[in-house]
């Protein structure tokens, strides 16, 4: 259901972009939408992160996957159960760049008997890694449309990505990988009954959307062609904040589609599951050191307890104490002096 709905949804978005191109609504699709989309992305992400940072995490709640630091002769797992900031940094590195926790993904199957079998399942991790890395490389590569002097890092990325020198324009490996990986991730949700059962439109939609963005890019580069000099003139005009008042001739409808879908992605990003891009850094089960037994952690909203001494107690109850004959340290006359001062 969700799979079909998101498919139709993206198709509708493509149609909107085509209509925009046909009506030549450049000021809306080519100027207003891109700027609004970038602003939404940046402000939205910042707001989400600040909101997360405002929620207290009173305890250390890292998920520990190894031996805790204990007695000196028990081998401590420094990365899987970190006790220091350095351990956490290494752990976060593995999490962010290599999806360490997804690597632990397991599959559960019921066999005849009945007997339950559990085994390692790396496909999701592999496709996820392939998809995310391709996306990052593609993003970096696109900087060539947003910089006048293309930075060295960008040229190197491009060179390595097209290293196989297949066809012209040179085939980028990441173009194939990203389309393949998204296709896998999509069909994984459609075909595996358990995954399909828990999948929502919000799970399918980003996949279809990103597939369409990558697909339209691939079409533009290898097949239908666009007027690429015009495209760069346009993108440069956007980032130099002197936007063009009309789309350069020859860029074609497909560029409008590509651009509009990217705008939709940017706007959709901060309000959806895609915000895990920022969330991965903020997840307390990953970014906290397991040092509960080493450092004293005080609840951040704990009210300060000032304590109450015997002198306070006696000051409050002296009269009553004297009247029932309980011995006091200071007599009424002595303690009256500070009270007199107050007056």
């Amino acid at each position, binding site marked *: 259901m969700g799979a079909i709905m998101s498919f139709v949804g993206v198709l509708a978005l493509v149609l909107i972009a085509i209509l925009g191109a046909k009506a030549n609504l450049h000021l809306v699709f080519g100027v207003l939408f891109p700027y609004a989309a970038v602003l939404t992305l940046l402000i939205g992400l910042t707001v989400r992160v600040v909101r997360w*940072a405002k929620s207290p995490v009173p305890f250390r709640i890292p998920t520990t996957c190894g031996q805790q630091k204990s007695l000196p002769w028990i081998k401590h797992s420094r990365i899987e159960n970190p006790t220091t900031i350095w351990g956490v940094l290494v752990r976060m590195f593995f999490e962010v760049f290599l999806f360490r926790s997804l690597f632990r993904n397991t599959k559960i199957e019921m066999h005849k008997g009945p007997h339950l079998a559990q085994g390692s399942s790396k496909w999701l991790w592999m496709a996820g890694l392939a998809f995310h890395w391709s996306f990052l490389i593609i993003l970096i590569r696109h*900087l060539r449309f*947003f910089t006048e002097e293309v930075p060295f890092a960008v040229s190197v990325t491009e*060179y390595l990505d097209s290293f196989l020198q297949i066809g012209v324009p040179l085939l980028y490996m990441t173009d194939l990988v990203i389309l393949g990986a998204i296709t896998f991730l999509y069909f994984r949700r459609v075909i595996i009954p358990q995954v399909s059962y828990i999948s929502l439109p919000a799970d399918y939609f980003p996949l279809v959307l990103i597939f369409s963005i990558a697909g339209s890019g691939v079409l533009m580069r290898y097949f239908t*062609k666009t007027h690429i000099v015009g495209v760069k003139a346009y993108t440069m005009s956007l980032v*130099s904040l002197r936007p063009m008042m009309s789309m350069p001739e020859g860029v074609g409808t497909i560029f409008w589609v590509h651009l509009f879908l990217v705008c939709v992605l940017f706007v959709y990003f901060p309000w959806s599951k895609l915000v895990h891009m920022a969330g991965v850094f903020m997840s307390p089960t990953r970014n906290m050191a397991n040092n509960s037994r080493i450092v004293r952690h005080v609840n951040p909203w704990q009210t300060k307890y000032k304590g109450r001494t015997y002198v306070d107690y006696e000051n409050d109850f002296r009269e009553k104490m004297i009247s029932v004959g309980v011995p006091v340290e200071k007599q009424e006359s002595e303690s009256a002096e500070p009270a007199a001062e107050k007056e």
Partner: protein
Amino acid sequence: MYDKGKVIVGLVVFLGFATFPFYNNIGKKSAVPEPNLKTPVIEQMVVKKCIEPKEIMRGEHMQILNQWRDTVVREGERKKMTIGGVEIDTSLQKGCLHCHSNKKKFCDACHNYLSVKPYCWDCHFDPKERDV
């Protein structure tokens, strides 16, 4: 906000990267390249025409060159083509660059602008520049 320091550093790094294209280019006016067609051969042509119209050449010239390379180098067959009544080899050096004898102002103008580095010049040597 808890862990203010770390969160703010993270946000600043992210925003720094994300807005790089903007602060790097703000207010700059970049020159859009226009491939130069003024060469001795083209100037003399009565009908200034390439093998295909401009729009097709713009998008497909690399594929055309690739096909030529395949037929010449791999199939050993060098075909001729006619431009403005003149027979010319299907060849980068003797064909394209015969008329477009200004690589720097023609090929490189757009390629450099877009950071495209065609590997033509891994084998072919850079031609002598001849423009008007």
